[in-house]
């Protein structure tokens, strides 16, 4: 296991390296530079600016320097926020996004699992249809529409939650709910399909033959086995939720990272874009690793030994 994790970490670093390189060169493709359009800068200032950010060097040198700095944990300084180190920028903005993102994932996946399980157990009757409908609705409503509605009704009209802003935990509830809907819907659908399969399996039959009641069977044998594939989608979903959080952050005025991301792209803030990309990739891969480890914990058949892991 330990060896496996080491191996995976190695692959992660490799992938990160490639991602960093690819983004680096993609950045160079972007039209416009952060400085050439600042007409108010004198040539001398520009020169100093380019020198300071190393933009006067040939691209390959910039690349080598960038990667070398990365290895030292230095993501560079933002162009957009003068003199702000990218790392500290990301870290300041990451916290709210992580909070609402993880809450959304927890709410979404737990409720999704529950909904999917209930639907599977009542396969083909009205409860199933209702659950299916709820989950489809969850996939059908964009989070920004949902966010606006939640804010208007739950917060503004019925005073159940704060309307917006970021002044404590209760401010994270509505945005989390808005974000939770899509993972909820997706886990529910996945869970249902999977659980229907599991419910048809021989060991469930055996569990009933042992004298387990319906619920005992579900709790003891069904949930865990149905969860296995569900876990695999949670990783990518989490990564998605972090990129998609921009919209909800905007509506609820949350100082999150999503907005930062779009803004840095819009302002050609290369170091920030690259820093964020690497961060996202890191998180994405970490999620994959975590899900794989979880996977092996939940399913004893899976041994974390081969490099392919589980997709």
């Amino acid at each position, binding site marked *: 296991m330990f060896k496996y994790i080491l191996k995976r970490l190695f692959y992660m670093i490799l992938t990160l390296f490639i991602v960093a390189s690819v983004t680096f060169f993609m950045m160079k493709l972007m039209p416009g530079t952060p400085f050439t359009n600042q007409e108010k800068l004198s040539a001398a200032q520009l020169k100093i600016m380019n020198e300071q950010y190393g933009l006067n060097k040939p691209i390959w040198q910039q690349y080598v320097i960038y990667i070398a700095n990365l290895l030292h944990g230095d993501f560079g300084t933002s162009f957009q926020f003068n003199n702000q180190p990218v790392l500290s920028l990301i870290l300041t903005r990451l916290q709210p996004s992580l909070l609402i993102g993880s809450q959304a994932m927890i709410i979404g996946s737990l409720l999704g699992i529950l909904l999917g399980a209930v639907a599977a157990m009542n396969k083909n009757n009205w409860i199933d249809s209702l659950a299916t409908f709820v989950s489809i609705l969850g996939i059908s409503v964009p989070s920004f529409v949902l966010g606006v509605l939640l804010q208007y009704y739950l917060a503004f009209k019925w005073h159940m939650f704060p309307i917006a802003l970021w002044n404590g935990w209760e401010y994270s509830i509505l945005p989390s709910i808005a974000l939770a809907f899509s993972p909820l819907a997706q886990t529910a659908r996945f869970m249902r399909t999977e659980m229907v399969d599991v419910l048809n*399996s*021989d*060991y469930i*039959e*055996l*569990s*009933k*033959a*042992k*004298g*387990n*009641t319906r619920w*005992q069977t579900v709790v*003891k*044998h069904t949930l*865990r*086995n149905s969860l*296995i594939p569900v876990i695999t989608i949670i990783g990518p979903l989490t990564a998605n939720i972090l990129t998609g959080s921009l919209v909800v952050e905007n509506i609820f005025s949350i100082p999150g990272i999503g907005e930062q991301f779009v803004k840095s792209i819009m302002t050609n803030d290369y170091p920030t874009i690259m820093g964020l990309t690497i961060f996202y990739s890191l998180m994405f891969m970490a999620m994959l690793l975590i899900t794989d480890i979880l996977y092996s914990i*939940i*399913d*004893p*058949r899976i041994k974390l030994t081969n490099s392919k892991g589980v997709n």
Partner: protein
Amino acid sequence: MSNNILEVKNLKINFATFAGTVQAIRDVSFNLKKGETLAIVGESGSGKSVTTRSIMGLLAPNAQVESGQIKFKGRDLLKESTKEMDHHRGNDISMIFQDPMTSLDPTMPIGKQVAEPLRIHSNISKEKALKRAQEVLELVGIPNAKERMKDFPHQFSGGQRQRIVIAIAIVNYPEILIADEPTTALDVTVQAQIIDLMRELQEKLETSIIFITHDLGVVAGIADRVAVMYAGKIVEYGTVDEIFYKPQHPYTWGLLSSMPTLDIGSGKLASIPGTPPDLLDPPKGDAFAPRNPYAMQIDIEAQPPYFKVSETHYAATWLLHPDAPDVAPPAAIQQRSAEYDHLFKAGKIETPIEGGQD
């Protein structure tokens, strides 16, 4: 009939499907005595599993029990509540499934799985239950049972898994053990071991066993009595010797003669041509008639009643009707009968078999 622990009477079961109603069980009756092994044979789709599932109360949701009774110690299981059935299952009546590879929960250590019925049905502590599970695992022949309790199903071989499944079934000393093709998925060598094991256990625990298979060889090794099913009906039942040496139903004849035996030469194997009928629309007469080389006019007109061959031997074929012409069973069957008579005469067997037309 007081020693009948289970009596199934006139059981009829249908399944509602898209295509229509499948008449899976069409009037099945049999009984099971304490301590005996009843084998149910018949080809795929003949209704063996549905019959046993109905005893367990584990029929699919689209099943309808049209009529019949399943009396366990005098109580009709079909009328029991869910709670009462939960109590019977795994306690009074246990079941072993066909595929040892899939009938264990892959994510639970086997010790816990074996202990589960104990925890459900008797109020004993976890430790005690696990202790008992270990004993049972030793009993079914899992080496190093104590250490292996924590292992997961995939860490065991097929034969071992089937032993574990058996351990689960017997851990509560059930009165009836239903084994639905417990060895079909196994190698011959392992199959032999499992059959030996079941025989041994039965001797020790005095359980009544319903053993389902389509392999007559296996039946010969384990059964006391045999019921032969075809298209949702029992077409012949009797003691194991009666069925194997003096079979009366042409389907049984076909089954027996399609198996190569030691001394069969390179001649053609006798086979049963054709396929079983569609239970969506079962024939009016004898369901076997279309595949029956001895079929008579009446076979397509009416279903044959059970004709009594002996006190323990009945067969549903018009051939046994007093008016029916005498037909000679296939050579292989005649040979069996002759062999039996020979053995009997030689004193190797005590009981003669009544009836028959030879």
